[in-house]
């Protein structure tokens, strides 16, 4: 095998310019794909991370029908104490669940005593919430505390309301809300912090303590709108989803219908569609790479066979078996693929390091100065490498087969 590689490598060196041009084309394709995957992948991961780690969690459990009416933030579709206990029991048996956070979602009137606006709120138990969505604390752009998300009696307000209503950290405001029976109640809060707004559902919601919400809404006992769940690893999402779905489906109401509905983050945010589009674009870029490699290698190998017909005749005449002749040409294609992949990967890694060093920022939606931090996984590099090398071998097969099947006399007569 070493001798076949040696001869194939020398043949590539013989047609140096053609080898350089072909491998340069493959290199270009590899660089384009790896850079695209790294940039879009990092963007996707960043956005998904931001959405799940600062807002949604990885999974959410609601009472059946809640999600369909979530825009109204209905209080009559909350989970009751018994239902919450059942969910807690199910979750406590799943090892891959890192934490979960119980929330009451509500709408209220927000008043700074001179102006009034409406606000959507998440009422949370701060300790649970920080464990479940750890980046929430990082979204506090004013009034961030190291030890706790917020105290009872405090409110974290979205930055748009802070700016619009000219409210600062430490100011008092009043929230007025209807409870599920329709009666109105108000409660004074101190602004504990200002939250950076982010894209997606809940990205511009305020946050208060769960007990404050119970007071404001005059809730006796336990009522919960949603339970956000964080997993130890995002990779566990599909099996945990299946398991929880199956277990929760067994809990039914008097009409023998499931009490709960379970959703992954993908169903809860429109960003998932963008993520899917990114995946689709990545797929098409890979298809283009395959086409580039296929056409360029096939072209160069057809030329190589055509130019060396006499040589093929000679080695065939002196007893080289068709399989070895085929191996010689397939190895040439393989080496071209390897050369393009190795050079392309090196250039890509250098380019990715350069982009990271340049600290390029970009805006997405209302979010500005997002840092472009492309990262390429070992798996992606290996996958692209295998695709390129595999296609190189595949593209060489037809010309190599032609060379191996060549009649030695015809080949020897070729000028």
């Amino acid at each position: 095998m070493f001798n076949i590689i040696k001869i194939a490598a020398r043949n590539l060196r013989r047609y140096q310019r053609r080898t350089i041009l072909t491998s340069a084309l493959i290199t270009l394709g590899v660089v384009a794909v790896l850079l695209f995957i790294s940039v879009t992948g990092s963007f996707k991961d960043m956005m998904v991370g931001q959405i799940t780690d600062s807002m949604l969690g990885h999974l959410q459990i609601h009472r059946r029908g809640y999600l369909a009416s979530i825009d109204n933030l209905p209080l009559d579709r909350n989970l009751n104490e018994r239902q919450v206990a059942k969910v807690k029991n199910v979750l406590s048996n799943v090892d891959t669940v890192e934490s979960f956070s119980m929330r009451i979602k509500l709408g209220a009137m927000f008043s700074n005593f001179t102006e009034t606006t409406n606000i959507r709120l998440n009422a949370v138990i701060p300790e649970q919430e920080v464990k479940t969505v750890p980046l929430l604390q990082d979204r506090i752009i004013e009034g961030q505390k190291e030890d706790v998300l917020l105290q009872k009696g405090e409110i974290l307000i979205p930055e748009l309301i802070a700016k619009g209503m000219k409210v600062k950290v430490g100011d008092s405001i009043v929230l007025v809300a209807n409870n599920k029976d329709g009666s109105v109640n108000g409660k004074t809060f101190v602004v504990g912090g200002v939250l950076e707004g982010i894209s997606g559902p809940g990205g511009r919601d305020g946050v208060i303590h769960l007990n404050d919400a119970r007071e404001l809404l005059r809730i006796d006992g336990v009522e919960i709108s949603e339970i956000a769940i964080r997993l130890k690893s995002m990779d566990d999402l599909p099996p945990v989803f299946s398991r929880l779905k199956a277990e929760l489906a067994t809990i039914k109401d008097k009409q023998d219908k499931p009490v709960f509905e379970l959703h992954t983050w993908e169903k809860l945010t429109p960003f998932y569609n963008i993520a899917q589009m990114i995946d689709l674009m990545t797929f098409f870029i890979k298809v283009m790479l395959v086409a580039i490699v296929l056409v360029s290698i096939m072209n160069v190998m057809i030329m190589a066979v055509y130019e060396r017909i006499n040589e093929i005749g000679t080695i065939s005449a002196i007893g080289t078996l068709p399989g070895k002749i085929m191996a010689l040409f397939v190895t040439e294609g393989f080496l071209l693929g390897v050369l393009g992949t190795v050079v392309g990967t090196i250039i890509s890694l250098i380019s990715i390091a350069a982009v990271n060093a340049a600290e390029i920022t970009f805006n997405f939606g209302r979010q500005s100065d997002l840092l472009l931090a492309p990262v390429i996984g070992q798996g992606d590099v290996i996958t692209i490498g295998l695709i390129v090398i595999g296609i190189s071998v595949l593209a060489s097969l037809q010309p190599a087969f032609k060379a191996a099947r060549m009649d030695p006399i015809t080949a020897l007569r070729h000028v």
Partner: protein
Amino acid sequence: MSLVTADNLEKTYQIGEITVKAIRGVNFSIEQASFVSFVGPSGSGKSTLLNMIGCLDPPTGGSLHVADQNIARLNRKQAARFRGEHIGFVFQDFNLIPVLTVFENVEYPLLMVQNWPEQKRKKQVNDLLEAVGMGDQANKYPGQISGGQKQRTAVARALVTNAKLVLADEPTANLDGETASRIINLMKKMRDELDTTFIFSTHDPRVMRNAEIIFTLEDGKLLQKNNGGAHV
């Protein structure tokens, strides 16, 4: 014991609707360690006959035995294997592999066809390069040596597997007179040393003069068998 035996050998080509009888019922036998030349005008069937003896082209009629093997029965792969084991080739255009050095060209059949162990292989190649006077050119590429040196290398390559038979199609056609004579003498010397049978096709009177047996072909028929100018 004959090394090559042809019995009523025929070769017919079909070119479109035209049938061309290249070899028409030829009979001959060639003994081991002979120095034989097939001569005749262009189109007489010399190269076709050599191609058939070399298992490159199967006969369409009669039988042809080379080293006790009826070569008409060999399939493509078996024919390649048989060539690799028993037959060496010397071509008019030398046909050395340009990306391999002189040493590697001679080594090629041992490495890629017969798979000899390294030490034995290197010794065999060095011995043959010395024998053909190319020992000091071993590391040069074909593009760096003269036509005569290329043909010496080709002779070494043909002999390196200890082939019983070397077929040479117009081996001196691209060489000047002096170089051609040296090549013929070299082949004769190798025949004497290794007992290898050499069969040529040629127009070249210098080659004919040196042949010990001359078969004359015309229109695919064997006209006569003569003892050449250099009898054993």
